[in-house]
């Protein structure tokens, strides 16, 4: 009688492993896999959001270009009165205007309004601890005509003022403000919406501006206020 031939050396561990795996409850396998996954993520900083690099800081006077708009920011000023534009500033707030030379870089006209979306999402302010975004935007004004909510024609430069209402206390505390500049994505409407518009603002750069003071928004308005022939006091 000869002993049965030994099974091939490789089949033995395979069968062994099979038996072993059969005995391990599925729950353990799932838990183990999750554990391994979590340990692996820990190597890349865990499940917390990866730290996004701070947006580049651009110098005052440099032009910020996006596919939507080219913006060259001028000064920032606290405005005493917006009566010439029939705009009200909420009580306890003051109006801050950021002056900019804007040129529409798209192929279609863009209406610069304070309404949500569009040009109003391109800039936001940080004054002290306060942040003023599109929601706090009072108006976008073309300063030479002057005109509220002007239409920006493609490739034609326009002098604009973006005006926000900011709590007065935070302005007094801060001598300067930070402007956040955003790029947006061109969205094409489908099915129920039609046309194209700019949306999805993404922070692309920041800039620091000193805050000045101005009586009114436009040089024109100042000239008009001064110009009427005042009778010299007798």
């Amino acid at each position, binding site marked *: 009688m000869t002993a049965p031939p030994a099974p091939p050396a490789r089949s033995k561990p395979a069968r062994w492993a099979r038996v072993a795996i059969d005995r391990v409850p599925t729950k353990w396998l799932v838990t183990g896999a999750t554990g391994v996954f979590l340990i692996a993520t820990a190597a890349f900083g865990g499940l917390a959001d990866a730290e996004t690099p701070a947006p580049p800081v651009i110098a005052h006077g440099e032009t910020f270009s996006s596919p939507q708009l080219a913006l060259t920011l001028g000064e920032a000023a606290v405005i005493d009165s917006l009566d010439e534009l029939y705009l009200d500033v909420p009580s306890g707030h003051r109006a801050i205007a950021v002056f900019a030379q804007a040129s529409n870089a798209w192929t279609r006209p863009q209406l610069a309004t304070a309404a949500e979306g569009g040009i109003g999402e391109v800039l936001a302010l940080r004054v002290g601890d306060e942040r003023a975004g599109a929601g706090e935007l009072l108006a976008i004004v073309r300063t030479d*005509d002057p005109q509220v909510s002007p239409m920006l024609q*493609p490739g*034609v430069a326009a002098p604009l003022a973006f005006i926000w209402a900011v709590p007065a206390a935070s302005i007094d505390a801060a001598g300067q403000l930070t402007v956040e500049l955003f790029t947006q994505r061109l969205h094409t409407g489908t099915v129920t919406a039609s046309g194209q518009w700019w949306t999805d603002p993404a922070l692309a750069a920041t800039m620091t501006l000193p805050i000045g003071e101005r009586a009114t928004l436009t040089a024109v308005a100042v000239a008009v206020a001064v110009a009427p022939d005042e009778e010299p006091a007798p």
Partner: protein
Amino acid sequence: MSRVRAGLLSAAGLAVLLVATGFVAATAPREADWEQPFAIDAPLGEPAQGRNIAATVHDAAIAERVVDRRWRSGEGSTWVVVDASAAAVTSEIGALLGHAALVVGDRVYLASTRPSGLTLNGASLSIGVPTRGALLFELPADVLGDPAAAAARLELAVKADPRLDAMLLTPIDLTALPVLPEYVLDDAEWGER
């Protein structure tokens, strides 16, 4: 053998279906196509009529500056000034010149709302009695150097959203227009041809 044949048949059927799907997807009109305005030729100087708009584009010119009684344009832009008259045809309800655009290549310029004087842009239209006035377009200073400037197109329509309505199209060669140093805007007037 029959199994192989059935397999071949279903593969061929699938291929035919895929080709047909691709053909339909590639040739079906898209939203931009089926919502097109109804284009009507309106050559310079000739009257043209659409569903609820009848207009004549009389003349056009380039101006370096535009002035009216209370406003001046400043420097740095090229202005295209169009002299036109427009009337409604079937209904005066909501009949405005709502869409006045100049298309140069892929760029679209809307008639300027900057002047304080009355232009034809947004003017209300009367049946049979035209309103005559100017349409002003503010373009970049270097637009005449653009090769597309020779084949610009003026679009006139009643609604600001001109889809699925009549649109009068006037081809304009911007490079052939006379250049004025200054254009003085007169208010649009009702009852002028």
